């Protein structure tokens, strides 16, 4: 039986992109032991989760920056084809 739908997204990792994902189903959270800061060590996070935070989060400093925030935005827009964190009908807020 054909269970494939056209909307199925490829779960293809980029070359060099570690496939281990820190995301865990909520049901599994209890057996991960201590939830404290300790679990930060040695954990390989998914690159996309990291980029969500590093490219849209983090304190934005203006003023004497060499690379202005505008430049970062520009760069990220160039990366859109790869990362596509932006929906087509919504302009990037950054």
């Amino acid at each position: 039986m054909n269970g494939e739908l056209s909307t199925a997204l490829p779960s293809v990792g980029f070359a060099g992109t570690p496939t281990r994902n820190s995301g865990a189903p909520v049901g599994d959270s209890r057996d991960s032991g201590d939830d404290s800061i300790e679990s930060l060590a040695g954990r390989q996070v998914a690159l996309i989760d990291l980029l969500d935070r590093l490219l849209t989060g983090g304190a934005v400093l203006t003023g004497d920056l060499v690379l202005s925030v505008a430049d970062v935005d520009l760069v990220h827009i160039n990366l859109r084809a790869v990362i596509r964190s932006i929906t087509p009908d919504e302009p990037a807020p950054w």
Partner: protein
Amino acid sequence: MTSDAGTSSMVYVYAVGRAGTPLDGAFPGRTGVGDGPLRTVRAGALVALVSSVPNDSFGADGLKAQMEDLTRLEVLARTHHAVVEAAYESATVLPMRLATVYLDDARVTAMLAEREEEFRDLLSRLEDHVELGVKVYADPREAVVTAEPEEEPAMSPGRAYLRQRRAQRRSHRDSYAAAGAIAAEIPVRVAGLVGGRVAHRPQQGDLAQGAGENIANEAYLVPAAHVADFRGALTGLGEGTPGVRVEITGPWAPYSFATPPQAPEGEGTDGGPR
């Protein structure tokens, strides 16, 4: 303007925190982006965790080249993240956005002095808090297995196909609707446990590795003492709903909460409509 002529390096800033914390030690043995040793720049009660980076690869053109190459971007992002986490494990820090580069220490000092009050307020808000990510996925392929109608033995292949297509479309719709309902339930379940919420854009594209389609991608600021309760409040969410999956990531350094809240109730600064 200070004299920049002749300088061959610039200053990459990872995070800002308070002086008089383990940040002062600058984590000897740990290197930053471009393999330079970490150090601090102090101004008043604040310190910035920084490392010197070469002009050529971290000037505007160099950074741009790094960020346009996914492999190099990943190295940059993971190195930045590793430094922020090392700092965050030992002190309350305000993580900087990726590629925050200054011409020299004097400019970092000036930036710290200029924004000291704002940084101190933010550090107070982030103290003893972690960031947790919650993502909701709709995965109709998973739903269709259970939504399969019982086959009538006499049904022609054509009819059976059409019926299956209808079932798929229905399960597709249902799965998105169910995922939306679950996404809407999350803030309700964790109300009272969190100090802030930011909606990131749903993840798409080749880097989005989770099965199905990400329909909600949120970050919550959670007091460290409430992390277990937060996870507990979401335990079982999405289970028993075929085609819907909920994932929690973190704890993270509070990247998504490092900018001052725009809305009084602490709603996301970049939280557009989902």
